[in-house]
């Protein structure tokens, strides 16, 4: 963990020290809303409405360009001092405009693109959803802010850190079948979602088949039938109280636990801290490998 932290810090320092990347402006690209956007010059005043985008910008040395973030961006520390401009569904459009940004990064799910574009502000939707997109969107953000080299370095570093954990878990003697619950309704993660990929890389066998989709609502009887050896996202007391669950292997052996708050948050952010999320998950799935 410590090594990982030092590594990521050194990457950040490298990135900060490096000169602006090789992007040449005007830059034209297609964003996640399928729009063609042209940036005339390197953006200097950026508002980010996605925590993962905020983290990526900071990790590639563009943190100082941020002039505002959404309510949920809380990492790294320095962004917590920036003006908050609301959330995805309740953005404070006036506050955003008042910050005079020359670029606003949005999710493709909000409805900000229209009003902000009309106010003459460049809007680009960048939201990574799948595992691979975390890397491709990091490179996209690198191009947008003129930090291509740093973005490439970050991606290399992330892949290296992930591979390091994967090498350990790949050869684990037993890989427990696991059920990861992201919402008690219950919703889980399919193997192709970025969380599902992390779960597999952490050395678990996801009980949810790919055919059920990326974030499926699961029929409780399916979980009982699959009888997972490990349950993540539900504490043991809650799990045991659910109809039929007291007979599950995971409940009987005590292998059911709520994710610690910080890990839960890491897992929900498809950004530069993906390797940390994987490491945290792998330590839970295979504690014996990380002694």
């Amino acid at each position, binding site marked *: 963990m410590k090594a990982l932290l030092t590594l990521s810090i050194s990457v950040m320092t490298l990135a900060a020290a490096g000169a602006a990347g090789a992007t040449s402006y005007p830059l034209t690209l297609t964003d996640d809303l399928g729009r063609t956007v042209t940036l005339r010059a390197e953006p200097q005043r950026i508002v980010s409405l996605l925590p993962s985008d905020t983290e990526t910008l900071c990790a590639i040395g563009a943190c100082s360009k941020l002039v505002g973030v959404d309510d949920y961006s809380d990492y790294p520390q320095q962004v917590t001092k920036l003006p908050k401009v609301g*959330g995805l*569904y*309740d953005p404070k459009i006036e506050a955003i405009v008042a910050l005079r940004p020359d670029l606003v990064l949005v999710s493709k799910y909000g409805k900000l693109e229209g009003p902000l574009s009309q106010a003459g502000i460049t809007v680009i939707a960048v939201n990574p959803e799948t595992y691979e997109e975390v890397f491709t969107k990091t490179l996209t953000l690198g191009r947008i802010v003129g930090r291509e080299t740093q973005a490439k370095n970050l991606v290399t570093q992330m892949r290296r850190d992930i591979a390091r954990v994967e090498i350990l878990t790949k050869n684990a003697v037993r890989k427990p079948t696991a059920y990861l619950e992201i*919402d*008690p*309704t*219950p*919703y889980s993660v399919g193997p192709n979602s970025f969380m599902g990929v992390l779960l597999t890389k952490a050395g678990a066998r996801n009980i949810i088949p790919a055919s059920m989709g990326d974030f499926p*609502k699961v*029929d*409780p*009887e*399916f979980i*009982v*039938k699959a*009888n997972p050896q490990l349950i993540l996202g539900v504490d043991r007391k809650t799990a045991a*109280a*659910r*109809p*039929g669950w007291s*007979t599950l292997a995971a409940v009987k052996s005590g292998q059911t636990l709520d994710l610690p708050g910080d890990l839960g948050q890491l897992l929900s952010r498809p950004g530069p801290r993906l390797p940390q999320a994987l490491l945290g998950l792998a330590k839970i799935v295979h504690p014996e490998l990380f002694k």
Partner: protein
Amino acid sequence: MLVALLLLAVVLGTGLGSVTIAPGEVLGALWCGLSRPLTGAELAGNDVIVWQIRLPRVMMGVLVGASLSVCGGAFQGVFRNPLADPYLLGVASGSALGATVAIVAGWPRALIPVTALLMALAAVAITLALAREGRRFPPTRLILAGVVVGSVLSAATTALILRGEDRARQVLAYTLGDLGFSGWHDVLTVLPYATLGCGALLLLARALDTLQLGDLTARSLGVPVERLRLIVVLAASVATAGAVAYVGVIGFVGLIVPHMVRLAFGAGHRTLLPLSALLGGSLLVFADLLARTTPLSQVGIVTTLLGGPFFLWLLRRERGA
């Protein structure tokens, strides 16, 4: 006939699901569950699915479907308004708000029906106070007041959902109606609410029949009209709060089931209410079966998607006849 339908619903609801289990095995599992108190044996595998997941879920469907339908039938009778259902008078919105408060605040599950009932009663009290005209509660004023109270409470629920974003999906699922994770314990918690509420309404069936002749006639026949309205509303609130507490807001059942019964078997409340219970219970079990075996995923979505068009078809047919 409706008894057979309900039995069929229970058998199919217990036999089918997202996990395929052979009929013989289902019977074995039921026997296993029934004999468990005698043998003390522990259930495993498919026995668990049938006995601890499907059967309580089916029973919850029967209880909730029956409660909402009986309340709908009674409301339609007591206010002589075909559009009345448990959502009238803000009963369901009140229950939903109470349950949402409990969910968002993260209170223990056992408190959910209690807060639901308290808020349902508060909602009814406000509605009645708004609608009151001297000592009388004229139906139009009651319904108007109910709509307003219901809307305000729904808005409060939505505000809570947006604030408690961590649990937003849980609360959203709840407001769409969901029978998932209904266990025997939940069934036993809801049972007294359903029995008490529906039982009282069934006992009042004869008085409700008399009320159909109009307030004046009913009064001259010795029916204490205002008190009857109050008791019906209270009984229906108890049953609705129990139904809404664990499974959420399930649309259209309370509205359409009494109409279906009326079209097929006539409008007398002594047949209408019990038959509504049977049909409502069966329909909800079938709807839940559809929900858990198709991507529609939640029973409230199924009832609304199927119930809405069916209701319109009923309206057209009635007009054409």
